């Protein structure tokens, strides 16, 4: 299993969390109260091509984005970013663009997979006059910037799985290339991490 950190970005109320909620729980709750709990969410997918299992550790902004007060911790070691805008909100694509700038500035990783996502297409399907950002406009810009691009609906689930599948595939490609490059690199000096939730079960100096 390969594990990757994915961060969500975008202005408040574009529906970042709902997309993840749809992805993780495959449900959508319009009237969900502001909720709390996990440090971050996890979800696994399987790539169709080779049955590779990929686990996403998904970080939501937890409201720190309102005043652009995201901590460096948030961006650190991110492998992928979902930058979300609202197709019915005229200036939200522009704001998404500024989030991408910020992201590139903060994350040193050249192989960061960025996916631009236009949410709430269900609203346009009901009433096309509600659409404020054209598909082509966002698509062209994403192409120029080398980003993945999807329009989705967290409400209906349209394209949500596809977004994560595509990101997973891309991450897998990078990983494969990286491992091929690494080859015989010496890993002996790596300092290992301690898991705080797992105190030593067998205490060597105690009897039991």
């Amino acid at each position, binding site marked *: 299993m390969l594990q990757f950190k994915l961060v969500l970005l975008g202005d408040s109320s574009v529906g970042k969390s709902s997309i993840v909620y749809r992805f993780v729980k495959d449900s959508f709750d319009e009237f969900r109260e502001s909720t709390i709990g996990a*440090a971050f969410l996890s979800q696994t997918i399987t790539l169709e091509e080779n049955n590779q299992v990929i686990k996403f550790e998904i970080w939501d902004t937890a409201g720190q984005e309102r*005043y652009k007060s995201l901590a460096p911790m948030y961006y650190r070691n991110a492998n992928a970013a979902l930058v979300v805008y609202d197709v019915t909100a005229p200036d939200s694509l522009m704001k998404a663009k500024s989030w991408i700038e910020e992201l590139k500035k903060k994350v040193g990783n050249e192989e960061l997979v960025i996916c631009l996502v236009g949410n709430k297409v269900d609203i346009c399907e009901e009433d096309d006059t509600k659409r404020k950002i054209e598909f082509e406009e966002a698509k062209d810009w994403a192409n120029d910037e080398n980003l993945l691009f999807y329009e989705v609906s967290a409400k209906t689930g349209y394209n949500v799985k596809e977004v994560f599948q595509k990101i997973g595939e891309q991450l897998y490609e990078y990983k494969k290339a990286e491992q091929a490059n690494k080859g015989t690199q010496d890993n002996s000096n790596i300092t290992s991490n301690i898991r705080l939730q797992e105190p030593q079960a067998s205490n060597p100096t105690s009897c039991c």
Partner: protein
Amino acid sequence: MLNAERRPSVAERRSSFLSGSLQNSMNIPVVPHLAGIEDPLPETTPDKVDVLIAGTGMVESVLAAALAWQGSSVLHIDKNDYYGDTSATLTIDQISNWVNEVNSGTSSLSVCYTNAKLYISKSLRHSNTYVSRDFGIDLSPKILFAKSDLLSILVKSRVHQYLEFQSLSNFHTYENDSFEKLTNTKQEIFTDQNLSLMSKRNLMRFIKFVLVWDEQPEIWQQYAEKPISDFLVEKFKLENNQLYELIFSIGLCYNLDVKTPNALQRIRRYLTSFDVYGPFPVLYSKFGGPGELSQGFCRSAAVAGSTYKLNSQLLSFNPTTKEAVFKDGSKIKVEERVIVSPTQAPLDSKNIPKQEYEVHRLTCIVEKSCSEWFGEGESAAVVVFPPNSLKSNNRTVVQAFIVGSGTESCAKGTCIWYLSTVETGPRAELDLDAALEALERSIIRESSTDLENENDLIQLGPNGQTIINSVKLGQSFKEYIPREKVQFLLKLYYTQFTSTPPFDVVTPSVFEFSKEWPKDSSLLVPGASDNNIVYTSMPCAEISYDDVITAAKVLYEKIVGSDDDFFDVDFEDEDIPTYQNNGDVQYQNTFEEDDEEDEARDMDIVENEEPMGEMEI
């Protein structure tokens, strides 16, 4: 005790709590709730909150998270564009700005720090090898004991999931111009050739006692006001080098005069932390210390609904209207308390508690890995310079926390040395310099490859085998004059002030304030912009995090009325794993928190100590 005033906690206010039994009976799979699902959020600052906190240092961040989980609405601001305040982990560029601000004398930062001197080498300034953000320099570096209140809060609050921790097992005591690695395991004590049988027995007797020292006042009571050194010599007949290790390396005390109970507490802290996660007593966090932990707690607070705003400075607070005004012109009504770090005090503040104690710090980045000092698979060490061990005839200990690149706090091939002392005045800087010189000499000696390459020392025999001229090698070591110099990429001196005296973890009197808003306006200082603001303490000299939870709890109790529900969080997915791939269950909390049981276990360690027999051989 729950009093009537207590607000329902976040958990209690959730709809799933109210209809909990129904949901459970329907057996709906419980999935952890999302962090920060957006309610339609207001585009401006909320117009009223329960608590306003200024400064995102360690104590303030823990407090914010505790309050947020309890159900209070919190606005948490910082005048800087980064998290951490007095606990920040800063890049090279941020350090430069910080030093400038300290020296400018115009900001409230100058009340808390003085005498900041920064040297940045040319090779760091104009380098293609390093970039500013390769380095994370802690303003108040800390180590985390494996058995401590902060650690259990980290686990309970799940903040640990945002962080990465590594072990630290090497504690060195500087003696006779060299580093002695601490004999800190019982096995090591028994196999130590330098210890006599009698010493071993005395040492074991003491260790057995110290684990339960507070239950045996009859043994130490007459020493309650006396120095620990008297106690150890008179009661346990310990020898000098053992005293030094126990008091300075294990206890991390500052001088031989520390009072007996204080030192016993600290010695036990080390011993009970040993073997909790493995054969080491402390941990440290990757990418930086308190700066990282602060970010983690702030994120936790945000997840629980707090609002975060960096680059935001408090201008004034009016206790009559309860209105706080910010530099950007915005205002907010604060229902309960305004908590402010001294570094973030508004201009014209007249109520900042006196910060009378000094901590002197010297932080260096060297172009050496210093891996010689680290334990296997580790990337940090503690070096302690006991009184009178340095050329400066230091009266007080100098403590050094060494952090290598494995922590990702500095670039590959470099290392950060954090030195600090509670010595006062000009002597402090002399002590720090002397300790730095000792570190420098030591690392050159230990890491030098020059000797091995020297033709005189290593000669090839006729068959190509290596012959080492050992006589010459011995001499050479003795007379070894370093040819090589340690390259310093950065040196930073500063004096930090705190209201917490050395050894007290908190001074509760600083937090003394009435629960009620003052009705008597004569209590207010005329013209002050900070009437009725509660100030937190600046970080104290303590190298561990031991003060943090205590300080946060004292404040919490003052605000909420009781500390019973301090981080009394119940996560919905507590017992039910979210997914079961490879048995990889993420949210289990198995950390032992029952003190009584722990103590019993610790006693067991001693009771069942096999090597007692070995000693008799």
